[in-house]
Structure formats: C-alpha cells, structure tokens
C-alpha cells in the first residue's frame, strides 16, 4: 500500500490516505520532513520528560489563558459590584477585579479555568527549575548546547515575568501589595529610581494604568517571547539530537532510543494529556488565588502571610533578611537605599552567574569536545556540589520569605528565625557544597569497589584450610561499563611565565588564576577502574574480602582525595 508519494511521477495513489498525502505533498513538499523526522530517535528516560512538563503546562496556559481573556476586563475604572459572592456584594472595585469575580462565580467553568491556569503557571515554573537541575547535574549544557542552556535560562526569566504580570492582573489586595513592593524596589535604584517608577505606573503609584499595561505584557509580549524562545529551544534539540545517559552502546557519536513515530509520538503525546489531566484535577479540587478573600485593591489593607507566588519567594526572602542599616545618605543629600537594592539585585546577579557556568566549566576543564553522553552527577563532584549550593541558597531565601508562616506553624519567634536565616543563607550553601561533594566522592569510591570486587552475595564459604570468606559475584559487562566509562579530569597545568620574575605578564596572571580555579574543580578526583587494575585485583584471588580496599582504590596520581582537608 502506498501511503506517501514524494514525486508526482510515482505510481498513482489509490487509497484515500494516499491520495490526500499526494495532494498535500504536491503543495508543501512535506515528504522531505516526514522522511527526515518520522523515525528520528529519542532516548528514553523519565528525567528527559521534565522539560516536556514545562512545554505542556505552557500549552495548557495558552488554552486556559485564551478562555480567561474572553471574560477579563483590563481596566482600573471603579464601579460598585453587585453579584456573587456575598462577601463582595455592594463593594466599590475596579473593572478588572469585578470581571475576575464574574468569571469565577457566574461564568460556568470560569473558576475551573482560572484555577487550572494558575496551577499550570506554578507547575510551569517548577518544571522549568527541575528541568534545569537535570540539565545542570548531568552536564547537558556542555558543547554544543551552551546556547540552548542560555535560551533555557532566558525562558526561566521570562517565565518569572509572565507569572508576576499574570498574578497582578486581578487587581486584588495581595497582588496590589506586591506591586507596591515592586514600586519600592524600583524607587531604590540610584539616580533614576523615581523616574522608573513613573515610567512603570504612568504617574504616582498605583495610578490607573498599571493593570492595562500588565495585561498587554502578560497576554501579548511575554507569551510571544516565550513562544519564540521555545521554538528556538526545540529546534536546537532537533539539531543537536537529544543527549543520552551513559550505558552499553551509547556513544558521543550515536543516539540510542525509540523512533519518534509511533513510540515517542504516543508517549509524548500521551504525556501532554496526562499533564493537562493532572492540572485539571488540581484546578477541580484545590482552591488557588482566592481573590474574593483578598478583596479589591485598596492601598490600606494588608493580610498576614503576604507573599508572592513561590517562584518569587527568593526575592521576598532576601528583602526580609537584609538589615536596614545599609541605607545611607551621601554627600549632596542623595539617598542610597542599599537595604532594598542589594537584596533585590544580588540574587539576580547570582542567577546570571549561574547562567554563565557552562563557559566557566569549559575553561577550567580545557574541554571543547562535543558531548552527547551525559555525566553521572557523582562523577563530577565539584559541579554537583556547586549546583546544590546554588539550590540551597535559593531554597533558603524562599524559606526566609515564608518566615512568618514558619513562625506561627512551629511556634517560633519570627525575630529569631530571621536571625537564623541571616546566618544560614551564607553557611547553608557552603555546607551543601561540602556535603554533596563528599557524598559524590563516596559514591565513586563505592563504584570502584563494586567494579573491583563485585557484589556481595551473602554466601559464606569455608575452605579446606578452615578460612571463611564471603563469595563476591563479579559485575556483568553492562553494570561495569556504566561505572568505568567516564573521565576524571585533571586540573589545568600552570604555563611557564613568559618573562623573568617580577615582570608584568597579564596573560600569565590570568592563566594562573584559571589554573587555581581549575584546581578547585579537579584536585579531588577518583579515577575509574582500568582493566589492568581489575586484573590485578582478580589475581589477589576472586574471594578476597579486601581489607583496606579504600586505600588502593585511590589512584589519583598527584593529589589523592585525602588531600581535600588540607586544600580547603
């Protein structure tokens, strides 16, 4: 049966599908694309679906968002509201807030759509973060994917913006206070702060223009940017082909997995419906952003537990932790609001530093090969440690942003919690780095031990000589390959200085700095087992229960792992 004909000269199609395919291809040349992509191979792993969760929640956001725009009125004109719920009947409110109430209480399915939309936004950001973590910890950002890492990072930032502009739209007390805080942060910018505030609000805060402006950003500009970046992001996935986890037969020169059509189409397509289903379940059963409890925006009220959505909590937390003493007045009576500026800007700068990580790592590793086989996180202890430290920093800030809720639910003093977090925000990440790196090194040691001596079977055998030993079952080829197939990078070597000592040599100084950084990355490392070592271990006797196996498992030539303690 002919299902596709790529040339008009081919045998005339006879089946209905064949005829319509012929019609289509004659006009679009789609045959090329089908030939190229239909059986494109995708590796199978659950962690590769995290990005898909983000993509699908974005699609759900577009679908439900379109529904909401049909009923939302982006206007700050005030009028008296009459209708459900009874706690809002007869109050003066903006059209934006009134239309939010109407779509929730009068439009059938309106509240459901609002709730799915909001849950989808929270899950969208959460899946972006977990997807980024997967990419970071497995080294998927290495050449040739650095640009795609940056695109993904930009998507994270635009996602934040989309969320902030979105939850501010209903013009309720909670989000209005969020805008008040944003206004305060903007005003703290030196020199142009007050003008920036006027730029955003079109006059004094809150004015009568901010909601329509946020609406345009939220439904037009930001989604368009996200859509364009998503397209670019996916295009690069196709160009580079997907990365794969290490394993038998998986090389930088191939990709092993299932064909796009039909297996991956069914799995990925099915997963879209699963994502949409889970978000519907949440929207159906769990109340979110109950604006009718917060009330229409009025600058006077404020509710306990005034926090932004979770992805902005880190900024809230850093604002809460910064002591006020940092504000000062300089000569000329200019006010420097560093108590606001520093906590608002510092986390963002750190995020940008995180975005540049792939370039830093490539430099200290002196690595410009293409990588398509992923790292096991344990095999890059320093990178994994750095990732956990970053994560810890932002998680601690998010907790600090919830300090009032922690105080009331655990019966603690909010002042003490704040002081605890003021210290912990510096100590915690350092500790996370240290402990993660130790765990990685420990896991690598365990891998070595397994490769050299096999699984413990629990079977005790007595020899004729009276000696008891436990039988170890050697690893099979596949198990072993996963544990030995990696490179333990060495620190960069310091180049010789060009001139005599004391002369200024910028290139040398820079090289020295990079070498130093490289040492931080790679001086603690554990080499994979080589066949020679394995053979040597076997010659000790298959049954050797390896006392002191730790020691001869470490073969890093210049710095042994035990040097860590001295180097820090």
């Amino acid at each position, binding site marked *: 049966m002919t299902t596709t004909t790529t040339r008009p000269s081919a045998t005339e199609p006879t089946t209905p599908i064949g005829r319509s395919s012929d019609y289509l291809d004659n006009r679009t040349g789609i045959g090329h694309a089908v030939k190229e992509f239909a059986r494109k191979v995708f590796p199978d792993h659950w962690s590769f679906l995290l990005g898909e969760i983000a993509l699908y929640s974005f699609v759900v956001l577009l679908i439900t968002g379109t529904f909401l725009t049909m009923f939302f009125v982006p206007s700050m004109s005030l009028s008296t509201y009459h209708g459900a719920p009874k706690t809002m009947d007869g109050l003066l409110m903006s059209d934006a807030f009134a239309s939010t109430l109407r779509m929730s209480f009068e439009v059938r399915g309106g509240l459901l759509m609002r709730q799915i939309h909001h849950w989808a936004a929270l899950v969208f950001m959460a899946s972006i973060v977990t997807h980024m973590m997967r990419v970071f910890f497995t080294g998927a950002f290495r050449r040739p994917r650095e640009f795609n890492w940056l695109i993904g990072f930009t998507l994270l930032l635009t996602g934040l913006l989309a969320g902030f502009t979105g939850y501010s739209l209903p013009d309720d007390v909670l989000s209005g206070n969020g805008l008040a*805080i944003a206004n305060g942060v903007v*005003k703290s910018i030196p020199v142009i702060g007050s003008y920036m505030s006027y730029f955003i609000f079109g006059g004094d805060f809150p004015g009568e223009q901010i909601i329509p402006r946020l609406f345009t950003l939220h439904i037009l500009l930001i989604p368009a940017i996200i859509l364009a970046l998503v397209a670019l992001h996916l295009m690069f996935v196709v160009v580079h082909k997907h990365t794969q986890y290490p394993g038998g037969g998986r*090389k930088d020169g191939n990709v*092993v997995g299932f064909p796009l059509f039909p297996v991956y189409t069914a799995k990925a397509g099915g997963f879209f419906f699963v994502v949409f289903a889970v978000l519907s*379940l949440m929207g*159906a059963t769990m109340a979110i952003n109950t604006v009718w409890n917060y009330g229409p925006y009025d600058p006077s009220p404020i*509710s306990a*537990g005034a926090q932004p959505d979770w992805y902005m909590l880190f900024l809230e937390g850093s604002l809460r932790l910064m002591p006020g003493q940092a*504000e000062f007045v300089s000569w000329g009576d200019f006010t420097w609001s560093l108590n606001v500026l520093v906590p608002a800007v510092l986390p963002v700068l750190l995020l940008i530093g995180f975005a540049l990580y792939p370039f830093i790592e490539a430099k200290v590793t002196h690595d410009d090969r293409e990588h398509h086989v992923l790292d096991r996180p344990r095999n890059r202890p320093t990178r994994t440690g750095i990732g956990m430290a970053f994560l810890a920093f932002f998680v601690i800030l998010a907790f600090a942003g919830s300090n009032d809720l922690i105080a009331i639910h655990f019966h603690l003093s909010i002042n003490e919690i704040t002081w605890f977090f003021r210290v912990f925000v510096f100590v915690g990440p350092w500790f996370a780095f240290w402990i993660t790196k130790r765990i990685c090194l420990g896991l690598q040691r365990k891998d070595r031990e397994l490769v050299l001596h096999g699984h413990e079977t629990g079977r005790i055998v007595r020899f004729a000589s009276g000696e008891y030993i436990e039988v170890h079952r050697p690893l099979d080829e596949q198990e072993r390959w996963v544990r030995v197939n990696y490179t333990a990078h060495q620190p960069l070597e310091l180049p010789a200085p060009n001139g005599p000592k004391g002369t200024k040599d910028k290139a040398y100084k820079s090289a020295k700095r990079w070498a130093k950084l490289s040492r931080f990355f790679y001086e603690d490392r554990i080499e994979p087992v080589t066949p020679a070592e394995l053979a040597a271990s076997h010659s000790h006797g298959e049954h050797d229960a390896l006392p002191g196996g730790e020691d001869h498992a470490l073969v890093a030539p210049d710095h042994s792992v035990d040097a860590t303690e001295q180097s820090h």
Partner: protein
Amino acid sequence: MSKTTDVTVPHPEGDLEHFQDPGIPEHRHRMADTDPKADKRAERQVVVLFTISVIGTIVALWAYFAIRPDGTTAGVRTSTMVLGLAIFFALAGIGVGAIHWAKTLMSDHEVVEDRHATRSPDDVREIAVQKLADGIKDSGIGRRGVLKGVVVSALALFPLTIAVPLISSVGGDWNVGTFRTTLWKKGTRLTYDPTGRPIKASDVTIGSAVHVIPEVTDEYRQSGEWISEKAKALVLMVRLDPRDFKPFAKGKENWTYDGIIAFSKICTHVGCPVALYEQQTHHLLCPCHQSTFDVADGAKVVFGPAKRPLPQLPITVDSEGYLVAQDGFDEPIGPSYWERLR
C-alpha cells in the same frame, strides 16, 4: 584557541587502560511479546482507558449544562469540581491509554542513529564564506566607506523615532515631585478608614489602633485618583498612656494630643502598609518584611530591613473636638528614593 585537550576519549575497542564498550544490552521480551493472552489483555486495557475518556467527555458536557453555579460557595464549588473531574477523566483516559499502548504493544526494540558533528563540514564552510564574500563584493560596501557609515547611522538612529515617544509618553507628566505631597494639610480632619466618619479625640480609647484617612468628599472617594492619593495619605493612629512615651524629638513635642499619636502607615522600607499594631509593646510591625517600629519612641526602627522611622503626622483637635492635622508631613512618606532629601 588550542585544539589539544587533556580529555581522553574512551576507547570503545578497549585496551589495558580502557574497558571495552559492551554494546547495547540484549533485548528483553515483554510479557505481551511472547504471551498472546498478555497481549490481548493489554489491548483490552487500552480500550478501557480510551472508553473512560469518552465517558469523561460526555460527563463534562452534561455537567456543563446541568450544574449551574448559583453564586453560593457550595454551588460554585460543586460545579467546578464535577466539571473539572470529568475533564480530568477525559484527558487522563487518552494520556494513560496512549502511553500504555506505546509501552506494552508497540515495538520496544531500541534503534541506533548516528550523530554528526554539529559544525558544518569544511567544504560547506568554504562555500558559505565564498558566498558571503561574493555578496559583499557585489554590494561594493567594502569600497564605499561613507555609504557604510551612513547606513549604519541611519539604522542605529531610526528606532529613536519609536522609542522616544513611547518612553516619554508612558511616564505621564514625569512630575516625580508628587512623591512629596499628600492630601494632609493644616486643618484636614482625620476620619476612619474606610467609612470616612470623622474622629472625636474622646472616642479614641487607650490601646486603640485606628486606621485613618484624610477627610474628602464622598464623590472623590469613588474616583480613581483617590486610590493613588490614599496610597500616600494613609495614617495609623494609636493612643497610649502619655507616660509611656519616650521624650519627643525636638520640635515634635506638641505633635500628639493627649496620648494620641499618628504616623504614616506606608513603610519606609518598600511601601507596604505597616498596619500591625501590638498594643502591649507599642510596636508597629510590617507584615510584608517584618520591619518593626516603636510607636512610643518616635516610630524608630527596632528590627527588620527598614532604616528610617515612619514620618509623623502632627495632630490636634478642632473646636468641635474632632482630630485634625496641624500640618502635612514634614518629609516625603514611603520608601526611600535617590532625591528624597533634596
């Protein structure tokens, strides 16, 4: 940049230093591959799942028409929940069905595809460079320096025609001096927020916290302008035993009336309403970032991220016993900004 790296590429063929790649693991058959019964069972499961989806869609449509939210909390909740759960089944049926189908019935033999280096091959690069060179030559841009300069200038300048009007207009009148002014002036009555009833000094009992707005007309309170003015004019007034006050700052000795003291309610940190008054400690706490101000001590900061005390509103009573402002605030209210003191 040097092409040499210290990265050793693992050798797939293996030697003394490197293990041999064992190749793709042997394919393991699934139950449905070997057992026709399991195959049939899996197919039935997929059919059931897709049927659940169809039923879900029907229930969703029924729910949409049959369950009308009546505006009550319970009614809206029922409508949302039934419709949402039906949609959940309609979607989950398709999703789980398709995935189950793919997992149990479609071929699970792994396929290997070759990758090629991302960079274009040398000959392609050469052609690309040549084409660009040809184009540049055709345009003659290299020889015409002035032309090049003018083209670049024109392209760089023209966005200003859009950007300048845009930026200039969205800032309104740019009169940032309004940050300094509020509705409070000499003789403005203090009224209860949100009702607007004027406040008699004798009505404020010790331990009270009163949220205060300046007296304006009812029509004005329905206007959009009011929201922005209210955002600057908010005041929190409390009364405490006059003996509890620490000595007043110079020039502010007569700013209170019989233990009644009034401060701007807008936080000097980032502008949240500092609305939370603890009667026993006389502390004002901002629920947003926990800046704490001591009302008994000129609203000085005792904890948190704010630096400056809350601006104080000087108050007194008029001939009828109502509380009035002696004057407006003597400093800009709210968060700090660059030219605040100028």
